[in-house]
């Protein structure tokens, strides 16, 4: 890495001087442990065979922890993340993936083979980020040791030729001034200390005493905290993946839910999840209120508010508590969060079978597919005799018919609720025991009773209406309407850690990017004509565009301290330093 590159590409953009200042070079070496470590590796390349096994390992480690590898892995990570946004992903949407593979029989299986539908848990993606984090650890540890040492050591010795450093200044005190070289240096040390520098006065017994000062250790510390916190974030994510869980539950108004495995419609446990982790709470949906925009001409019917009124209990014997749940305002119950992620209508339906018995009674959840809550609905009635019955169709809260007589949904509120159903009879295939999606009915092997192509026509039902199925197989009645909410219930024990570490990372990042790490040296001497001469120079570690401003500030401080007439006013740049070199002790 290019501390050297940076120093030589100094702020003035001047070409590098032939000899980098010795102290600067030492500075660079000191702060630059792992990066300098990569330098000899080029030479080792050539002599590879003689390295032996340990040598090879060391070589590989040096390569892996080099800045260049880190950069390469970072860019690779960025590229590798992209396919996850181009192809449907299993964790988010398994059904879409299945559909995609069916629709693309040629490419689909190949994409699947390369885990392009599971990008973020794929072997290659994991390999990249694991390598990156190993590189990170290998990079941080030596740097932390370096920094620990640097923080405890004294500022480095004063370079012989200060005028070669990027920022340089000098001034001469008036002949009558009582300030000797030693006092000048002591004064400077006091001023620098007050400015947050760590200082060391040296050479007070020589003719040219000096002070070395350094500040900005927080910069490197911030950098280390930032990188370590990234590891912390990764670990927290892993903890969430191991011990967390996430489940879905649909609750119709009036129904309740108890937090047990069987209570869920859908449940994805973390790898190390155990059922004992489920907090024993329960909740009941008392009422679900929706509000749609009735004023706007352009956004008429757009949702404005969803509010679920619930009664929750922390445990079987706990007192019930009324609570409201809204989008963006989850409920927190016993370390578990409950989110409102969806809602819709559940028409209440009664089906009587051919024998006249009630085979189904109750709300049927329909799945909205657009802003007008045009909802698809599937009802399976396995208890119907003599034949099992199935219904598939639409629920429209406000049904209108177009000129061709085709019904469409025109509003999300139930102003004219209608059910449009097809009916089927036959074996629904539910008794095989394998779980079936309740929202899908495979009708290919069933006998069609009603649909638009049949003589019997499709079923159309308004509230309180009953339709009689053909062949005396039964009746279906649309009794009423309820609303339901779809809840996500999650527990992620890694969440707090992720927040903590990312906040730390942010703080560390700010410290690392915005704190300047610099060194200042001040040296004083006595001119043959009796004047006390002072010179100083500044050197930054890495990017520091405020170094010049700091140099100005220090010049002002020194001038104010001694009320000296500056030798060359406001001229403390490097070039000026060279120009005023006549004032130097020589």
């Amino acid at each position, binding site marked *: 890495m290019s501390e050297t590159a940076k120093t030589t590409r100094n702020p003035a953009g001047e070409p590098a001087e032939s000899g980098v200042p010795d102290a600067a070079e030492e500075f660079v070496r000191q702060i630059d442990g792992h990066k300098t470590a990569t330098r000899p590796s080029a030479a080792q390349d050539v002599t590879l065979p003689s390295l032996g096994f340990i040598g090879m390992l060391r070589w590989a480690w040096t390569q892996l922890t080099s800045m260049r590898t880190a950069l390469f892995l970072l860019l690779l990570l960025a590229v590798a993340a992209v396919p996850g*946004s181009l192809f449907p992903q299993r964790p988010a949407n398994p059904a879409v993936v299945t559909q995609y593979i069916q629709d693309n029989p040629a490419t689909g299986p190949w994409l699947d083979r390369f885990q392009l539908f599971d990008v973020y848990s794929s072997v290659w993606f994991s390999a990249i980020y694991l390598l990156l984090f190993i590189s990170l650890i290998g990079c941080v540890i030596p740097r932390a040791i370096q920094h620990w040492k640097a923080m405890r050591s004294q500022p480095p010795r004063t370079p012989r030729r200060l005028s070669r450093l990027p920022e340089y200044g000098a001034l001469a005190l008036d002949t009558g001034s009582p300030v000797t070289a030693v006092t000048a240096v002591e004064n400077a040390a006091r001023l620098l200390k007050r400015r947050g520098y760590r200082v060391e006065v040296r050479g007070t017994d020589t003719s040219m005493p000096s002070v070395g000062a350094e500040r900005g250790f927080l910069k490197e510390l911030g950098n280390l905290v930032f990188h370590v916190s990234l590891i912390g974030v990764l670990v927290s994510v892993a903890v969430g993946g191991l011990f967390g869980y996430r489940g879905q539950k649909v609750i119709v108004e009036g129904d309740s839910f108890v937090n047990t495995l069987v209570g869920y419609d859908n449940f994805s446990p973390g790898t190390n999840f155990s059922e004992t982790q489920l907090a024993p709470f329960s909740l009941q949906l008392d009422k679900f209120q929706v509000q749609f925009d009735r004023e706007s001409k352009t956004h008429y019917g757009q949702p404005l508010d969803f509010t679920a009124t619930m009664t929750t209990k922390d445990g079987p014997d706990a007192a019930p508590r009324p609570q409201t749940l809204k989008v963006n305002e989850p409920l927190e119950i016993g370390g578990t969060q409950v*989110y409102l992620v969806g809602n819709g209508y559940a028409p209440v339906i009664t089906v009587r079978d051919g024998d006249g018995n009630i085979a189904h009674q109750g709300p049927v959840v329909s799945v909205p597919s657009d802003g007008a809550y045009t909802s698809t609905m599937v009802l399976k009635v396995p208890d119907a005799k003599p034949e099992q019955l199935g219904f598939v169709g639409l629920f429209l809260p406000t049904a209108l018919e177009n000129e061709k007589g085709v019904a469409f949904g025109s509003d999300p509120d139930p102003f004219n609720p209608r059910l449009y159903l097809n009916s089927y009879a036959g074996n629904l295939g539910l008794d095989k025991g394998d779980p079936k999606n309740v929202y899908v009915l495979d009708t290919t092997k069933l006998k069609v009773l009603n649909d638009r192509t049949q003589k019997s026509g499709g079923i159309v039902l308004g509230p309180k209406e009953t339709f009689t199925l053909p062949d005396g197989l039964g009746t279906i009645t649309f009794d009423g309407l309820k609303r339901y909410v779809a809840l996500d219930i999650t527990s992620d024990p890694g969440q707090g850690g992720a927040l903590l570490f990312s906040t730390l990372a942010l703080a560390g990042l700010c410290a690392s990017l915005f704190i300047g790490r610099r060194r200042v040296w001040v040296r004083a001497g006595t001119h043959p004509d009796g004047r006390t001469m002072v010179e100083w120079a500044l050197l930054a570690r890495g990017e520091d565009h405020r170094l010049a401003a700091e140099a100005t500030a220090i010049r002002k401080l020194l001038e104010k301290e001694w009320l000296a007439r500056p030798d060359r006013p406001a001229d403390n740049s490097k070039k000026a330093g060279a120009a005023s070199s006549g004032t130097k002790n020589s």
Partner: protein
Amino acid sequence: MPSIDETLGQYSELFILLAAMTFTVALISFCWDLATASKTLQAVEDRLARQQAPAEAALVGAGARNGAAAGAGSTASAETGLETAGDSLDYGGRRRPAARIGVALAALGTLILAAGVISRGIAAHRVPWGNMYEFCTTGALVVSVVFLLALTRKDLRFLGSFVIGLVVIMLCAAAIGFPTPVAHLVPALQSYWLIIHVSVAVISSSLFTLTFAMSVLQLLQSHREARSRAGQPDRLGFMRLVPTALTLENVAYRINAVSFVLWTFTLMAGAIWAEKAWGRYWGWDTKEVWTFVIWVVYAGYLHARATRGWTGTRAAWLSIVGYLCVVFNFTVVNVFFSGLHSYSGLN
């Protein structure tokens, strides 16, 4: 919920169209400034050269040229004789009437745009960043305000045609591509995290816009510098108004550093909001993927700046790629990719 003020909303749209027109004229001025730069400067130099005593001119040769140029607030490299704007980015003495008009019009356009954006916010009783139209208009406002603020401290007028060009593009995209009448927010967006998350994202994107322009200019300038070192004639005369590649790189780095912190915050705030709204702080939703990609690319950029052999041109390319990802995330991802973040307002 208080009702939408539709009349005010229409005035807002009118303001925004007006602002777009003003910015277009500003853009033309800035382009004019660049286009004439090579010509006027050449003329000034010729005149100065003629004023110099022939003997002196013979004596110092290129030095006189440099002196004249430096007097006009720019510098010429001693090595190549190539003229660029001064490294300090301070305002120089050279008169650039077209650029002045550009700045004045940009300021006027910003005022009108501010009126448009604020009146939309008032009309809707909420922050005006809830759909693509509003992201674009608010984003354009932030870009121009940031640019004008930067102009008060440094002479960045050389960026004018790029930055104002992008502002015009954003406003046109809003007015033509994503026209959306004022409306209430859907429940998913009703959260104070909208204010925090999106505002910081917009500010950060605006800063990335500035550095993108700088990185492009940096590449052009270093190309020009390389040609000059090789003794080839200068084909990019307008680049005299632009500082050296190294200065551009350093300034872009400083701004990118700030913007990276803001983007990091955007990402974190987005994760916190996602946790509140969807019950998980990270789920690799398309929008999240691209926010992450952008973050990693700019982290790569910061690393590149500290990696031997990767400073300069390569780092500039990374900054450009990062910005292209920002644009992609904002346009293609919002409009064409489905995901939880489907609030572009387009259906």
